[in-house]
């Protein structure tokens, strides 16, 4: 049958020998390993997320913290368990199946965490890891790591932080340590990841994404993006199984363009459409249980042009299935990305081996520099 679909044409970023043919979706699924991975990840297409600032206090005060930017920090904290229970039930009612509990520091409100978990069993908590969250709360727990202890003391004003985080979450199946690369801590990652993996902790990577107006030393530049990508590759090679990441994650999050420019962000703040997808369902609740569509995204008050945040990518890249069905390498890369996202965010989901070891460029982009 003749086909009017556009071929990619330029062959950019595909491995050597790749042709420019127009691939059918069924052809991309013909490889059994690819088909199996597709079937594995698509079972989770039912996830519909929203995020909730559950506490406006924190026991750390980190440079560049997105929470203490903009208006959301001024919202009154609603600590009433009944109000949160009612909210969770209402969220379930409107189709939300996954909650992200965040900012400022959720571990300071343990009762609310329990209430949310009882009502909405799938979710994640973003914490600094200083206080252990009750194991009865069966959400994924993302522990933020910003460098070694010297750096943590300087940037987060917290001494001995990594040791405390590991003590709290060693051998905890909920825990994923999220190492945030800033412009200043790239080389430290090797030592920190070594300590974490030696303690059998699982690690994934985030990119510092500047809050609106931030021009400080943590903000990435072209050189730091390339250097970070190289370091990510090295960490994946050195620590298979403990580092939850893929080559395409590295590409997508260290590209000179931010996530919005690469993939067009579907979160309400950047997406006026309320027809379908995140533009329709996503809400970002403040601590007073209000939300504002114009400000709603997974990391509010981030400079959208600089956004390479791991949480953003989990939705932004994943939602663009359509753009990644151009050729086998791009599709495999997308599957690796989704597999990574699910392993990081969903309890019980285990990441498979990456299907594409190549650095494949995002659809429509120039060829990337291969490490």
């Amino acid at each position, binding site marked *: *049958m003749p*086909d009017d679909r556009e071929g990619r044409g330029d062959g950019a970023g595909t491995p050597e020998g790749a042709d420019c043919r127009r691939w059918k*979706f069924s052809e991309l699924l013909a490889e059994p390993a690819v088909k199996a991975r597709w079937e594995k990840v698509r079972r989770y297409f039912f996830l519909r997320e929203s995020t909730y600032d559950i506490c406006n206090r924190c026991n750390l005060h980190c440079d560049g913290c997105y929470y203490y930017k903009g208006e959301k920090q001024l919202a009154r904290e609603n600590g009433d368990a009944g109000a949160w229970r009612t909210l969770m039930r209402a969220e379930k009612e409107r189709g939300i199946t996954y909650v992200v509990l965040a900012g400022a520091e959720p571990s300071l409100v343990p009762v609310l965490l329990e209430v949310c978990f009882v009502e909405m069993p799938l979710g994640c908590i973003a914490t600094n890891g200083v206080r252990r969250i009750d194991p009865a709360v069966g959400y994924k727990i993302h522990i933020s790591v910003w460098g070694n202890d010297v750096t943590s003391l300087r940037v987060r004003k917290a001494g001995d932080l990594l040791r405390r985080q590991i003590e709290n979450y060693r051998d905890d199946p909920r825990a994923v340590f999220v190492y945030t690369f800033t412009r200043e801590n790239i080389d430290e990652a090797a030592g920190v990841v070594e300590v974490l993996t030696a303690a059998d902790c699982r690690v994934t990577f985030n990119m510092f994404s500047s809050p609106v107006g931030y021009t400080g030393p943590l903000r990435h530049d072209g050189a730091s993006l390339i250097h970070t990508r190289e370091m990510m590759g090295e960490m994946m090679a050195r620590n298979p199984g403990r580092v939850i990441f893929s080559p395409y994650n590295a590409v997508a999050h260290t590209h000179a363009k931010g996530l919005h420019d690469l993939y067009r962000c579907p979160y309400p703040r950047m997406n006026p459409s309320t*027809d*379908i997808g995140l533009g329709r*369902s996503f809400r970002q609740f403040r601590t007073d249980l209000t939300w504002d569509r114009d400000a709603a995204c997974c990391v509010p008050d981030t400079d959208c042009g600089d956004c390479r945040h791991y949480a953003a990518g989990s939705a932004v890249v994943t939602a663009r*299935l359509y753009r990644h069905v151009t050729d086998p390498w791009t599709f495999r890369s997308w599957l690796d990305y989704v597999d990574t996202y699910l392993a990081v965010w969903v309890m019980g989901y285990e990441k498979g081996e990456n299907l594409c070891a190549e650095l494949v460029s995002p659809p429509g982009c120039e060829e990337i520099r291969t490490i």
Partner: protein
Amino acid sequence: MPESKETRERILRIAEIIIEELKLEEITPESFDPDMDLVNELGVDSMDLATVALVLQDEHGVFIDEDDYPKLKTVRLIAEYLQSRLQGRKGKDA
């Protein structure tokens, strides 16, 4: 205007694909209401719709732009969309 046999068959096939891809139970292509709102009534989301669109692209050899997904609210609207794309292609070929 009564729908043509071709339209009816296309509607049934689209319903069949949706049932298969979304693993819907207790519904058949024949019992699938072609005017049911897929988003509001069936709970279809963007990933589901993308999957269905990719299968339809394969079958019909037409391009379905992701910006057009919001237009594809019902099985009947999908059928009409496909029809217009196929006619457009014939026009180009002529």
